[in-house]
């Protein structure tokens, strides 16, 4: 029998600014419902309301005809809602099994001693449900690669329940950190949940994925529901149009200037604690992509160039110098870096936009602080990177993910870098902001800046980069000219190198 979960008249405003305005959505059991919208459209707010993390100004929920009241997270759990968040919130010091069962009471013997055998068994079952067999639930969660961490997080929502089984699963960008293979495992697990009669609410920026796996779709724009229908009624271009309110043609801006022949980076047989056999040259104006399975050393490679960690052997020339010994040295030599985790590695969240942008460039303002000069500098940069904000004095935690990323771009652009290192630059960024970021990157490259992009988004790598370096387990296994490469070729390279 089909169940119906109805959300009616959901509204929520923050400090008088509406984040959601009278949104009503119906979710059906046994179906996957996609929730789409640009960053700041209100998706996260809706999910937080369902999870009871924040309280709505108005909201009524009905399961079939029965009202469901959610005022806190416990309500949400007992109502049968489960959430898979995009952030990796594992406790690294305890075992994977304990992490998977973190929100449950651990089973005990005689009510005292923890029944470890059952703990491990239940954790293994949850992982098996997801199709994961290569993870040892007894080891510490800290050792996992970031893709595996995500799988563990997801598995924790699949722990078998003694009571009535959950009937709504909310997935908040679960595939952002997953490879295609891992995503496929997730989708087959989602299919099983559907067959069990659960309703699935699925948030992602990957339109292709959504068109393939979802049944229904609701699109939010600026806090308002602009479309809710079966997915087969919409074409990709229409979805984009509903999300952005405008038409997007070519998603990757083409190269307009030719590369110079001057090498800016030249690495020979570089070996570090995490990397081996790294060999490549990078020309001024060239864009190099770094691809590989999650945890193959992409971040280590970029961090090495920005002065974190050191080479044990090999030769390196970076902007006519040796490798930077610290991020301080790297920035002062014209290397800019946008880290993978913008919240934990990139931004001081409680500080304002201006302070975050100038953070790497305080030296250029001398000893005495010059807020007025900074403000005019930052406002100019913010216009250039198209940050949507209420002025440079706004704290960055109030901005959406895409705008936070643009603040980091403004910081990187500030010093007119010669080498720009981008680690997953569009992760969790909506499609409109993505295109703006691609345009920026292209402009920089046309002006002669060398750029290295590490990304798990293969179309992005293929669309933007001139050459692609493949990493597998820290080893460089390929350096491909893009020319006529397809996503399939690239995948074959990534996976075959893994088998070697």
């Amino acid at each position, binding site marked *: 029998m089909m169940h119906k979960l109805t959300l009616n008249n959901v509204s929520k405003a923050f400090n008088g600014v509406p984040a959601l305005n009278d949104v009503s959505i119906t979710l059906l059991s046994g179906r996957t419902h996609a929730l789409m919208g640009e960053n700041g459209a209100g998706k996260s707010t809706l999910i937080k309301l369902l999870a009871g993390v924040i309280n709505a100004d108005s909201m009524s929920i009905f399961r079939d005809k029965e009202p469901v009241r959610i005022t806190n997270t416990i309500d949400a759990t007992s109502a049968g809602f489960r959430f898979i968040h995009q952030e990796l919130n594992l406790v690294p010091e305890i075992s994977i099994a304990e992490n998977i069962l973190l929100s449950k009471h651990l089973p005990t013997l005689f009510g005292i001693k923890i029944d470890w055998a059952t703990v491990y068994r239940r954790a293994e079952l949850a992982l098996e449900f997801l199709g994961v067999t290569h993870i040892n639930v007894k080891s510490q969660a800290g050792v996992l690669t970031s893709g595996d961490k995500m799988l563990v997080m997801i598995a924790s929502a699949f722990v078998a329940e003694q009571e009535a089984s959950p009937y709504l699963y909310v997935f908040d960008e679960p595939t952002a950190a997953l490879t295609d293979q891992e995503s496929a495992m997730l989708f087959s697990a989602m299919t099983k949940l559907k067959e069990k009669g659960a309703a699935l609410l699925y948030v992602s920026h990957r339109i292709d994925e959504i068109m393939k796996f979802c049944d229904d779709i609701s699109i939010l724009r600026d806090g308002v529901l602009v479309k809710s229908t079966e997915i087969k009624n919409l074409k990709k271009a229409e979805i984009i149009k509903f999300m952005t309110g405008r038409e997007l043609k070519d998603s990757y801006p083409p190269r307009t200037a030719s590369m110079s022949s001057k090498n800016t980076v030249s690495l020979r047989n570089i070996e570090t604690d995490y990397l081996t056999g790294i060999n490549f040259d990078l020309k001024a104006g060239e864009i190099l992509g770094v691809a590989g399975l999650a945890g193959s050393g992409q971040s280590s490679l970029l961090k090495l160039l*920005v002065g*974190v960690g050191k080479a044990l052997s090999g030769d390196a020339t970076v902007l006519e110098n040796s490798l930077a010994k*610290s*991020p*301080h040295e*790297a*920035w*002062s030599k014209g290397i800019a*870096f946008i*880290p993978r985790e913008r919240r*934990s*590695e*990139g*931004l*001081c*969240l*409680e*500080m304002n936009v201006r*302070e975050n942008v100038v*953070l*790497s460039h*305080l*030296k250029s*303002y*001398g*000893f*005495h*602080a010059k807020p007025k000069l900074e403000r005019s500098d930052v406002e100019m940069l913010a216009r250039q990177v198209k940050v949507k904000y209420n002025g440079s004095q706004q*704290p960055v*935690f109030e901005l959406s993910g895409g705008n936070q990323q643009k603040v980091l771009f403004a*910081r990187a652009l500030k010093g007119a870098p010669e080498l720009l290192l981008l680690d997953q630059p569009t992760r969790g960024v909506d499609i409109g902001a993505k295109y703006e970021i691609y345009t920026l990157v292209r402009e920089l490259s046309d002006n002669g800046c060398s750029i290295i992009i590490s990304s798990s988004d293969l179309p992005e790598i293929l669309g933007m980069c001139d050459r692609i370096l493949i990493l597998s387990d820290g080893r460089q296994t390929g350096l491909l000219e893009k020319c006529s490469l397809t996503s399939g070729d690239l995948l074959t390279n990534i996976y075959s190198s893994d088998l070697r």
Partner: protein
Amino acid sequence: MQKLRQSGTLIGFVLIIAFFSFQLPDTFLTARNLLNISQQLSMLAVVAATMTIVMVMNDFDLSVGSMASLSGIVAASLFVNEYSIWAGIGAALLVGLVGGLFNGILVSVIGILPFVATLGTLTVFSGAAFLLSDGKTIFGRDIPKSFSDFSRGGIEVGSINIPMLTITAGFVIFICWYILEQTNFGRRLYAIGGNREASYLAGIKVVKLRMFAFALTGLGAAIAGLMYASRVASANPTQGAGLMLDAIAAVFLGMTMSKQSEPRVIFTLIGVLVLGVLDNGMTQMRVDSYVREILVGLIVIAAVAVSSISKANR
């Protein structure tokens, strides 16, 4: 809610003043008593202002009290051996700077938690003070008159005489305010407090700056120790002991008044004033000093609770 948190401490301060003015109409709100309060507070103000420098980075320094004692003992011991006043003062300040730098190295280079590292040096500095002084108070003829005269002096402004200790504290507070609010050095410290990893990756020299900030806090403690020694014309290996808790309390009180609950020197000063006014008023009303301790403890807990609640509400 945030407005209430931000103005709560100030409202409390005004209420405290109103209460004491009502209870002690003849003695409390007089120029003489206010100047007296400012002098009593001056040591605490110096330690709290320099403590703010490390607390901006989410660090703190438990060793300031014993450093203040040590600095007084170092100066006094040199006086006993007939060194000049400036030699004594210079040596005490140097000990403060080096001790603070040592804290900085433990915390920043070696990576020990500030709580553990400065708890260790608290004991080390205190032990050193006892060792140097043989556990006795150095006083009387051993302390040069011009050294103790400093704290009795003042500058005449119109009809009032502003004590030198108050002026010294004002000067230190101004320097701390200037460093933290008006220089890019201070901005970097706030960034480190905001997100240490991000600051490091953005090219801030985190290790060096943390070390330097601890050195400044040590120097502040040494200055306070000298002020104390001058005021009581003696040096005792435990005389700075009460400063640490009060200084941290003052910074926490001040943190309730800022937008994102970050420490600010000006707000720290208000925290110091709250504690000082309470102390003065209650002494005049002959309230047991133990009661005062209970009250200060409760105020700190309330201040931290208010900041925590408003953070959790986000």
